[in-house]
């Protein structure tokens, strides 16, 4: 198991007080906190070797280039990518998904063909496909939801048919916690000759992920959700897929030769990285990967199963409170969305904040899913490596307090 007490020492923000009480940070699905080593990597970069990268012959530039490429290698190894040239730096998951939509799907999806996604996608993995489908005259199909917050795959073979060019699914749902069977979906996609894209925003930070084992063509994830800085994300793509992609942003660094009339593209991965990259935060993301590797992703996953199970049990005892997503903690990530007709999600959010507890409230960028679930908003607690069962206790007490408070004013 993780030594959370020791881990907490590494996160300066966790000693902060909010509204006079200790911070209980349970908004990790939105963004994670950062260990000292990640912050230190940024400071180190800016204090010692900040420079523009690529093609600089001076020492700082060589050092910055080496450090950024080393970080790329770390990220490649972290998800078992076949090569660092399959790792494209983006700002976040959203940009990575749009890169596939604009650079790959706009080129390879034709009128009458299909794109298949799921009923539990984040807006970032839904709206880009609406646009591709509209512009290309393709059909966007949705894999529906089953009763228990899992995908209903009973019709998967007719939904993903031979006219399907792209299948995409969220690996772990940020609104339900559900872990989707991406390996099976990859296999079905392969069967019909479709590409397969995984939204790994909530999986890569929280469990061992192996892109080659899954068999996906693309995977998108964000540094800021995995202990890394804001402003850096990743698109992993198989080399063959990258080679069939058009650059999305054009300009400096991604070209080989340029005349006033025309330009040729640079090698991979630079072809997809126009302009000065986010050097510092790429290096910071490398430091985050180091930190996670130090903990061991198996143990990170174990810890989350444990704390999620603990929280599910405690929430299960609160009358009139609904918790969404699979009941079995082995089948879900560390995300607990809860809802009651007695207390609106925003009131939960405000009351919990007065108790130092940070949870997210609202539609979690999954409005259509919310409509399917029949709720306008939920409150969501989400865990990470530094969260403890004591924090779950604080949360559960505060939830109960809020419910009593709004029901009859008693405390």
């Amino acid at each position, binding site marked *: 198991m993780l030594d959370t007490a020791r881990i907490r020492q590494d996160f300066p923000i966790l000693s902060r007080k909010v509204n006079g009480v200790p911070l209980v940070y349970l908004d990790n699905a939105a963004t994670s906190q950062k260990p000292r080593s990640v912050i230190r990597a940024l400071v180190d970069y800016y204090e010692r070797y900040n420079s523009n990268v690529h093609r600089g012959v001076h020492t700082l530039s060589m050092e910055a280039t080496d450090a950024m490429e080393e970080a790329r290698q770390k990220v490649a190894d972290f998800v078992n990518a076949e090569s660092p040239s399959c790792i494209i730096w983006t700002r976040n998951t959203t940009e990575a998904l749009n890169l596939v939509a604009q650079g790959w799907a706009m080129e390879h999806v034709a009128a009458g063909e299909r794109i298949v996604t799921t009923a539990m996608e984040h807006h970032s993995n839904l709206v880009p496909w609406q646009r591709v489908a509209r512009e290309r005259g393709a059909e966007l199909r949705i894999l529906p939801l089953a009763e228990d917050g899992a995908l209903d795959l009973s019709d998967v073979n007719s939904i993903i048919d031979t006219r399907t060019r792209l299948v995409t699914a969220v690996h772990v749902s940020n609104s339900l916690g559900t872990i989707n069977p991406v390996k099976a979906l990859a296999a079905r996609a392969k069967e019909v000759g479709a590409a397969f894209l995984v939204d790994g925003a909530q999986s890569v930070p929280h469990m061992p992920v192996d892109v080659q084992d899954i068999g996906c063509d693309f995977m998108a994830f964000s540094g800021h959700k995995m202990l890394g800085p804001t402003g850096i994300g990743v698109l992993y793509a198989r080399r063959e897929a990258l080679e069939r992609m058009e650059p999305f942003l054009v300009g400096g660094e991604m070209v080989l030769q340029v005349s006033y009339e025309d330009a040729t593209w640079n090698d991979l991965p630079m072809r997809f990285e126009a302009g000065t990259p986010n050097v510092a935060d790429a290096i910071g993301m490398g430091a985050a990967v180091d930190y996670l590797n130090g903990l061991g992703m198996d143990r990170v996953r174990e810890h989350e199963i444990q704390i999620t199970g603990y929280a599910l049990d405690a929430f299960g005892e609160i009358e009139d409170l609904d918790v969404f997503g699979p009941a079995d903690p082995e089948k879900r990530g560390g995300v607990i969305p809860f809802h009651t007709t007695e207390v*609106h999600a925003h009131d939960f959010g405000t009351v919990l904040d*007065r108790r130092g507890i940070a949870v997210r409230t*609202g*539609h979690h960028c999954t409005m259509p899913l919310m409509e399917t679930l029949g709720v306008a908003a939920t409150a969501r607690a989400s865990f990470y490596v530094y969260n403890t069962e004591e924090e779950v206790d604080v949360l559960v007490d505060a939830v109960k307090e809020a419910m009593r*408070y709004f029901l009859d*004013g008693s*405390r």
Partner: protein
Amino acid sequence: MAPDDLDGLYRDAILDHCRNPRNRALVERPDVSANAVNPFCGDEVRLQAALDSDGRISRIGLQAVGCAINQASGSMLTEAVLGRTIKEARAASDAFQAMMQGRDTAAVEGPLTALAGVKKAPVRVKCALLAWSALDDGIEDEERRRKDTSGLIPD
């Protein structure tokens, strides 16, 4: 964990209006009618009011869906503007908005003052304002309609 702390935000008046909202029945043949939505939290307000021959709000109905602050603010609104002229209602709305934006608390009276505590949670201020923005929209529509009508029918 001081309960006082929550009470500063959710004062008794708020909880009372939230648990027992006033004037929830919509009115027939309303003169003023407007909806307001905050897509981000799913809060919704539906407001209808009828005017008497003096231009006073003689009946009002408001249905608020969503958080406690939105519901309480809507319920208090109905009590605050019932029997007032359109102009007075608009002034009440301005005064309430001034209070919630921290500009001026002087002109707000009665249970509505309880909502001042919401400023402690600044993102929630827009919950308190939703019903009032419906009121403003409804009044504006009604005034435009009157102007159009008076323009069309020369007296």
